[in-house]
């Protein structure tokens, strides 16, 4: 009681800012447990999320058709790509709608509808448009979305070599 400045609090337990013994033990035990649990858990988590962390394979170009066969009317051409899906390798067949635009440039559109992923077809409604049978989405010859679909049709990367058309990875439409 000699220190009259602390007279009011003298009868209460001294409040110290330091960590209590109980807190220290709780943190130490908790930290050790977390460290030990991380040993088995981290490899398993990394194992599970591996698909989103693996590097995507670069697209290769596939020979599809002679340049001379392309008209200003879109035509469908099928081609095979080599696909590695985990332990399963296959050669699925893809399709592309290839045509010349007004300037005579050749371009190839993906037949996957940008609405919900059905397959579109050319001129089935006799209106010189691409048409998707699922929800009646329509696109122009260049792939511009006219109704239902939110985006224009995707385009294949295209290379011309020795009179042949080579198609590569799919990219967003550059024509519209």
């Amino acid at each position, binding site marked *: 009681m000699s220190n009259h400045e602390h007279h009011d609090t003298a009868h209460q337990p001294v409040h110290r800012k330091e960590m209590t013994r109980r807190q220290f033990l709780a943190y130490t035990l908790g930290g050790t447990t977390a460290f030990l649990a991380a040993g*088995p*858990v981290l*490899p*398993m988590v*990394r*194992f*599970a999320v*591996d698909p989103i*962390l693996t590097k995507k394979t670069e697209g290769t170009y596939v020979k599809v058709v002679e340049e001379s066969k392309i008209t200003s009317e879109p035509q469908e051409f099928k081609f095979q790509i080599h696909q590695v899906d*985990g*332990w*399963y390798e296959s050669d699925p067949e893809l399709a592309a709608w290839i045509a010349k635009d007004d300037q005579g440039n050749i371009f190839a559109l993906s037949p996957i509808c940008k609405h919900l992923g059905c397959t579109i077809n050319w001129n089935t409604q006799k209106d010189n448009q691409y048409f998707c049978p699922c929800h009646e989405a329509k696109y122009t010859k260049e792939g511009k979305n006219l109704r239902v679909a939110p985006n224009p049709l995707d385009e294949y990367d295209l290379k011309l070599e020795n009179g042949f058309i080579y198609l590569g990875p799919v990219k967003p439409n550059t024509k519209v």
Partner: protein
Amino acid sequence: MFKGIYNWIDERLDITPMWRDVADHEVPEHVNPAHHFSAFVYCFGGLTFFITVIQILSGMFLTMYYVPDIINAYASVDYLQHKVAFGGIVRAMHHWGASLVIVMMFLHTLRVFFTGSYKAPREMNWVVGMLIFFIMLGLGLTGYLLPWDNKAYFATKVTLQIAESVPYLGPYIKELLNGGEIVGAQTLTRFFAIHVFFLPGALLALLAAHFFMIRKQGISGPL
């Protein structure tokens, strides 16, 4: 923050008594290695459970890549071990853990036997422990076939021929486990189903009974 969340839930559901009931119990001096180091033999049951938890977790993760099919099983195991990050480690955890769980369980059984802990009133817990032992052996047998390599195939062939040697019932047991006449496509899916659904389900039920009884009856007294 965690304390705040905990208190919010506790005010509404009063969860403190629940975990208190599970976590707060006295550890007698004769089973505490801090008092008598030789008391470490009382840890083998807990270690068996710890490794079982590792087995369940690593097994769950392995099924993300594994397929129980004779064409793809080996290829998928090869892929997850060599192409997926930490695949070798996760599979090794399951592989070595499978042996370790048998070792730990055996040591636990020895401890219970030599301390006479199986005696009245704990006979039922001994019986449940024995059932767990056979479930574990079943898990080991069915899991061994799943990689579908030469070792898996011939080990299973041998085991099924041992099963066939049971008097009268043998051929039926063998055909039931085979799922047909040969060790093949149907055996693999059958063993997979038993390995990941039937036996783990039975195991969890028996473990619950095991732990309930030990908590109810308490740890047996000192020698």
